[in-house]
């Protein structure tokens, strides 16, 4: 029983972190151009970074 006092908040906290990450990703437009994201790794930008 005493284990639950740690485990449940930990489980909920992890879920909330995931949820917050999703909201952040959505707000910053990470899902707006999935096709572009897939293609961008193919750009060879060796110049200034």
């Amino acid at each position, binding site marked *: *029983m005493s284990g*639950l006092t740690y485990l*449940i908040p930990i*489980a*909920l906290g992890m*879920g*909330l972190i*995931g*949820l917050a990450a*999703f*909201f952040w990703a*959505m707000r910053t437009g990470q*899902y*707006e*151009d*999935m*096709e*572009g994201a897939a*293609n*961008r*790794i*193919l*750009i*060879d*930008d060796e110049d200034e970074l």
Partner: protein
Amino acid sequence: MNLATALDPGAEALVDTRLTAPGIRCAGCIGKIERDLPKFAGVASARVNLSAKRVLVRHAASVSDSDLVEAMRAIGFEAQAVSAGPLSADDAETKALLRALAVAGFGMMNIMLLSVSVWSGAGGATRELFHWLSAIIAVPVVAYSGQPFFKSALRALRHGRTNMDVPISIGVTLATGLSLFETVTWGEQAYFDGAVMLLFFLLAGRALDATMRGRTRAEIGALLSKMGRSASVVQPDGSAHRVPADLLEPGMLMLVAVGEALAADGVVEAGAGAIDNAMLTGESAPEAVGPGCPVHAGAINLLGPLQVRVTAAAGDTAIAHIAQLMDEAGQSRSRYVRIADRVSRLYAPVVHTLAALAFTGWMIAGAGWHQSLVIAIAVLIITCPCAMGLAVPAAQVVAAGALGRRGLLVKDGGALERLSEVDVALFDKTGTLTLGEPRPDLAGLTDAAKAVALALAQVSRHPLSRGLTAGLLAQGIVPAAVTEIAEVAGSGITGMFDGKPVALTSAPAGGSRLACELAIGGKRTMIEFRDELRPDVLETLAQLKAMGIESQIVSGDRAEAVASIAARLGIPGSGGISPQAKLALLEDLKAQGKRPLMVGDGLNDGPALAAAHASIAPGSASDLSQQAADAVSVGERLLPVALAVRAARRTMQIVRQNFGIAVLYNLCAVPLAVLGLVTPLIAAIAMSASSLIVIGNSLRLARAAR
């Protein structure tokens, strides 16, 4: 991100402009635009969206839209500025649904974790604790994620109607309320998991549907922007002045330079040459004009400067009338009732009646109000259309994905439903059955002649010259060193090669309309142009026929041209049909109870595309036609048209099966619920099982587009 190179930050306010550039296809294009565009003065950064084929440019306010379009052209992309309007509203709705879905998913997982412990026998204080924890999670989750349903249900009730969202809202609210009551009174059963799971599955269906919905209707502004924005008007004192298109008035005299788009309808007063009417009629051959010829806004002046007396301007031009027709034609489609709504109209009253009957039945049978209410709510939850909510969108999303991989982009789920019902197909000719661009027949030319022809043709923007240039470049021809090249408006291009005069001139009058003549020294060669049929036209028509769909051609082109193609294809065809007449023809077919499929590309097909029961536009179609159509087929092939109809029919078959599964599930589950045998565990299993079966059945459509 590529940041400013030629810009002093803070010196000037930066503004954002969206450009649409259909030519963006690959990583190379992204790299090129994002690297090269910021090199232009005043441009701070560019960000490409490959899915939407758009570029977001951040630039100094002093840089105008046309400067940006020019800059894009300089690095090799045709572009056009767009307003953010139509896309963003849809986007906001999709995002709200996805957020609600994420919250519901979070709540469902955590509550399920606690519920499983309760079901596996946790009792006493542990059960109380878990119920309280579930309540703390569930109440905010329901309040947040339920909003799309609550809002829509309220809207429907306020108008005295009912929809699928009404039983959902009542079921979820009652289940949450009852579970709260159970928790507070230390009761045994809480339905938090059921309520949240219901929301999760339903939101999944809604989110699928919303992500599928494309950019539906365009604003009319997009069309009018194709018209010349201003014109040079001759003032009484003889000087010329730029006047914006909406300030032009009948009677004014416009000076139209070569390459300029006309800003108003008018009659040519002086000058001779040719105009490109492709925007208006979809016909690729230029039309010769001289004094007295009527010309329309949106046409592009190709050869020599013209003086045009304005006869109609702004809202009275032919192009504005087409825009208006399209707008009106689109209305009938918005009245189409989608299958999910038709089903829910039957379903919602039945569910409510059942729940009410269960409640009164148990009250009469002597159960307490508490037990009767629990049973009534169990009925509501168990009948709540989880599988129903997924039945349509799951199938349509899978089918649209499969079609997308075969080169047919479907705008929304409703489009698939309407495509499945068509029983007669109308095809435009130029650009739809044919490729829409004149291709030269180069068989009669030697390599040396080809090189000379290319050198001459590449300086001109006449459509035939451009067709010839494209055809020659495709063969890997290198232009010859022709000197003293000059384009004589109205007749052709001349130059000197190897000490001999060379010329590329339009064909002598009386010959075939689509031809030009190459002269090298004294030797003259005819180059004929043909607008080729798409390679798979016959196969497409045969497949449509096999599905019971008769085809015919309706074109704005000359009747003889249409008749010869119609004869070759063995289908009826009629030519010289105006946009209004096409619309009338469609209305006529609809009045006969037919459901016409319109396939067309030109702006003149726009109203017909918007009015037809379903419509498909080739990828080469004008922007507006693409936006008016239900689906856009990419590439040179016509076969996706037949494929679309077949896949749409298959999709509706699966959708009906899905409804069948949902009904079957209800037939099994409802009696259990009415008898009071449904525990939260059974409800959870039944709901997720039926949803999974429906999703699994829909996945079979992944191969529908074969």
